[in-house]
């Protein structure tokens, strides 16, 4: 008889990960689209402050990759949700897979996508500057360099990646929950809005608290700790949920 093939989880995860890189090209197309939209929006609607007297007006337009980063975060969130949907799952289970390998390869893929998303989002600053220079009638370019050290740049890049990863994890978890029970699609937003309302009613600031938990954390190491713990809890929950999921 044909002998049963022994199989290691890691090799299957590796295969699936490789397959996903080839298969989910739409994810990267979406990334490019989202970032191009972000870059164009930044050029059109950059934030301005101005000073004016009747002799002259000084206008300072601010260009930053922030909008691109925000859109990339949203992209990561939506893509993570999409990856949990039936259509993507069916693709995965065509070949060898179990729930754990499916999740691990998904996460490895999302991590890759997020790293690429973070790098491109950060790089978009340069192209924004260049396009501003070409398309807009700017007298002087101003930059700030001396205040930011290389270490700050690296920390900022890591934080950017962590924000994107947090969004992806949130999306993945929410997606898994809704796959598990369709009713959650309605239930989750209702619950969140309800909780927020109650929190605000009781004098708390509701969601702002959650946002402040991350966005107002100025210490890199503390932020890292908060983010990593959130990521582990989120992905662990997603794996636990999907382990009972029926596929195909």
């Amino acid at each position: 008889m044909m002998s049963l093939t022994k199989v290691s989880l890691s090799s299957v995860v590796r295969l699936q990960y490789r397959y996903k890189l080839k298969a989910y090209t739409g994810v990267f197309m979406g990334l490019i689209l989202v970032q191009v939209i972000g870059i164009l929006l930044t050029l059109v609607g950059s934030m301005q402050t101005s000073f004016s007297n009747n002799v002259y007006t000084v206008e300072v337009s601010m260009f930053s990759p922030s909008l691109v980063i925000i859109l990339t975060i949203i992209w990561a969130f939506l893509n993570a949700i999409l990856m949990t949907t039936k259509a993507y799952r069916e693709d995965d289970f065509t070949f060898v897979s179990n729930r754990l390998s499916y999740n691990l390869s998904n996460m490895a893929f999302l991590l890759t996508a997020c790293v690429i998303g973070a790098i491109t989002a950060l790089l978009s600053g340069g192209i924004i500057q260049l396009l501003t220079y070409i398309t807009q009638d700017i007298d002087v370019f101003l930059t700030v360099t001396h205040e930011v050290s290389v270490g700050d740049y690296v920390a900022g890049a890591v934080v950017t990646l962590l924000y994107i990863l947090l969004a992806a994890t949130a999306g993945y978890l929410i997606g898994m929950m809704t796959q598990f029970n369709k009713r959650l699609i309605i239930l989750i937003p209702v619950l969140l809005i309800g909780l927020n309302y109650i929190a605000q009613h009781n004098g708390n600031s509701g969601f702002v608290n959650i946002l402040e938990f991350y966005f107002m954390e100025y210490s890199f190491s503390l932020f890292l700790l908060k983010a990593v713990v959130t990521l582990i809890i989120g992905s662990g929950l997603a794996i636990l949920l999907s382990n009972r999921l029926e596929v195909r």
Partner: protein
Amino acid sequence: MKVIECERLVKAYCSMKALDQINFSIEENTITGLIGRNGAGKTTLLKIIAGFWRGTEGEVKVFNRSPFNNLEVSMNSIFVDDMMSFTYTLNLGEILDEAKAFYPNWDEEIAFALLEYFNFNPKQTHQSLSKGKRSTFNMIVGLAAKCPLTIFDEPTTGMDAAVRKDFYRALLKDYLIAPRTIIISSHHLDELEDILEDILLVDEGKKVLQLPVDELKEYAVTLSGRTAVVMQTLQDKEVIYKRDVNIDNCSVVVRNNFSHEEVKRLGIQVSPVTPTDICVYLTNQTKGAIDDVFNKS
């Protein structure tokens, strides 16, 4: 050695039971036809065996393991149906290359030879294929994977008669080269029966019978003749189905477990029943025929 063992397997959706206490086992290196009407629970059963779905109650063992969420079962089995989903971004040739990476027994030579034989362009995408072509491609993947457990769920959907014939031939040839356990669910039992070893007939989530095809061919006979005479002989026989009963003549399908000589002597004609017909009769829910619907009015 038994490759699949099911014991009192139940799959329930709310109050509906897709599988109801089904018991059976499938021997290694056999080709089994899973036969049943639409909605009999064939797909449910196969998906549980493949490890995609979990049973509600009872026990399934594939290669002595519980298949749900089992990587080893997944690696050693392949489930082919017309819903098989491949990525849009790879063409057929690239999909076969990917499959090669996943399945250790993958037969690249056969895969590409079949691809050529069935006039596929390796540069095509799976999505651009017609329904029949898609089924043919899925079949190629199923065959070339050479998994110890190969499951075909309605593999011939959309295929024309010539391709179906080629498929059965290819399946058998491949089975002879690399014997493995194959389960095929199909509506075309008559085309398929020769390459099958066993038949597993299910109805309403229950096993009706599991027999070698040859035995199924001799499972029942039709007795036809004058109604009064035939009715007389039915007393000690197991009636499966009554057909064309009118005042003068009738034909009745009965279990073939008696000597034909004595009924022949009464002038009753004894004729065999094809496995396809037996399956239809055994799973007839209304215990009547479609004619009855029209006869009433």
